[in-house]
């Protein structure tokens, strides 16, 4: 990059380098919280100075130098004068020592494990991962989650405090611990993806697009751990889901269900990439829930319509998912697949069984699934009542509008018939 570099390119480069710079700094100095602040400040300085002066020859070296200077300023103001000399001595040592090949990667990965430390609450893990590994600023993260910046700043500093208090060290989890820790990392990435996938479109440059960010981070993790089948599975799941994004909302922001989406607007590139990923890992035999969910998404994405979807295969995959990761939502989705294979009555029978599950009983999705299957079976009043019940119970505004609209549309077809009795 020479001449006047593009601000967006600089942003991407900075965020690519952020975890490497922070990892190197923490490995050298410890003090994760202070290092993280220093890296953010160095990035801010880069954003102001690089567009005018051009990107330095070694952007990473530049960031490391500036960040360690900031860190030392911090140390100086914090400690007594006699401590200052030590810090100066540390600063004088060259930072970019020859490293083992791959040390950057190990640092970045260690950093990710630290941000998703089990001592942190879910929201803290997410916020810290986006900031320290994703390189996003507090204001951007706050905008993405629609909370005030002060709230997000508080959440991040609490997260750092929790890391400090837990005594967690900047080191790779041991082999015993690693699968469980990686599972948390994947869960955090998936939560970030879902937050973005479900949120309304960002309203400007200040609101980062979270699902794109989750895909970027997962892609990066997949490069670091190419042999891990679940990492590949999660990346595939994200791509195959994100491929349908444009079709998922109408021009007015309304929700378009899978069956009514314009499949020609699905992103063929993302589908191809996702299908290739999941096809490569599934036969290898380390099957896990993300791979199976990706496989389900792939079957949907490769179908021309709901009618031509390979529902028996989807049902088989839900059976498998139910064994790997049983849960009420899996059972619910499986019931819908059963209905598509064996008819709505078979699905409705299963839903009746699920009603006794405390976790599902009042859940809008159970009512929405029942409404859908009742509609399939031709029971219009029943479907209308269930759509309305689901609309009352959802906590999502677009979903409530969709469900209410669906109920109104169906009730309208039956003009004059029991219109009053179906009202809430």
């Amino acid at each position, binding site marked *: 990059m020479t001449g006047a570099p593009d601000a967006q390119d600089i942003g991407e480069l900075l965020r690519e380098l952020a975890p490497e710079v922070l990892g190197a700094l923490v490995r050298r100095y410890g003090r994760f919280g202070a290092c993280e602040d220093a890296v953010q400040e160095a990035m801010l300085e880069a954003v102001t100075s690089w567009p005018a002066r051009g990107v330095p020859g070694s952007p990473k070296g530049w960031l490391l130098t500036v960040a360690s200077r900031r860190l030392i300023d911090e140390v100086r103001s914090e400690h007594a004068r006699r401590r200052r000399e030590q810090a100066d001595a540390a600063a004088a040592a060259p930072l970019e020592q020859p490293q083992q090949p791959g040390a950057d990667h190990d640092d970045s990965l260690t950093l990710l494990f630290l941000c998703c430390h089990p001592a942190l*609450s*879910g*929201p803290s893990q997410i916020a810290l991962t986006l900031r320290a590994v994703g390189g996003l600023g507090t204001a951007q993260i706050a905008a993405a*989650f*629609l*909370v*005030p910046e002060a*709230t*997000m700043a*508080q*959440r991040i500093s*609490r997260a750092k405090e929790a890391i400090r208090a837990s005594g967690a060290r900047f080191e790779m989890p041991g082999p015993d611990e690693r699968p469980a820790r990686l599972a948390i990392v994947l869960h955090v990435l998936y939560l970030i993806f*879902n937050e973005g*996938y*479900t*949120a*309304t479109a960002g309203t400007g440059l200040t609101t980062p697009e979270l699902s794109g960010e989750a895909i970027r981070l997962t892609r990066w993790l997949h490069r670091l751990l190419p042999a891990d089948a679940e990492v590949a599975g999660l990346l595939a799941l994200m791509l195959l*889901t994100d491929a349908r994004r444009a079709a*998922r*909302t109408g021009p007015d922001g309304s*929700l378009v269900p*899978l069956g009514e989406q314009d499949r020609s607007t699905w992103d063929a590139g993302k589908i191809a990439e996702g299908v290739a990923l999941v096809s490569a890992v599934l036969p290898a035999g380390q099957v896990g829930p993300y791979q199976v969910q990706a496989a389900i998404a792939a079957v949907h994405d490769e179908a021309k319509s709901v009618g031509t979807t390979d529902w028996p295969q989807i049902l088989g995959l839900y059976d498998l998912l139910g064994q790997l990761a049983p849960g009420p939502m899996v059972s619910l989705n499986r019931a819908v697949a059963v209905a598509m294979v064996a008819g709505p009555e078979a699905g409705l029978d299963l839903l009746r069984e699920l009603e006794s599950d405390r976790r599902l009983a009042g859940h809008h*999705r159970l009512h929405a699934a029942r409404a859908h299957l009742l509609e399939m079976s031709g029971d219009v009043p029943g479907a209308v009542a269930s759509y309305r019940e689901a609309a009352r119970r*959802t*906590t*999502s*505004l*677009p*979903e*409530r509008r*969709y469900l209410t609209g669906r109920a109104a549309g169906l009730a309208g077809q039956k003009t004059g018939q029991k219109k009053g009795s179906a009202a809430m």
Partner: protein
Amino acid sequence: MKYLLMIYGNQEKWESMAGGAWPEAIARQEAFNAKYRQTGELLGSYGLADAAQAKLVRRVKGLPAVTDGPYLETKEYLASFWLLDCASQERAEQIAADMPFADGEPVELWPILHESAADQ
């Protein structure tokens, strides 16, 4: 998820509190606010003016028309509300139950619809 906590009351009720009880109630409430601002879960807390200050605003032939009101039929009205952003309904219930006023009066807890569609 965002949640709204609400408490109800009226001027008479506040005035009837014994001398030292009111500042003490405020102090306990301030401590509650500080605690949950600290955790990043309290987005804001707001006290409403007395109902005597409330107005009704309409537009009549394109022009604003402001009148006194509303004339409430209930004895108690919305006094204060808190906006939370927390991980789950359970957590919101926990915070609501920690509200100092919850000793004597119920605290209303309402989930706020989020602007996005839920995950599939």
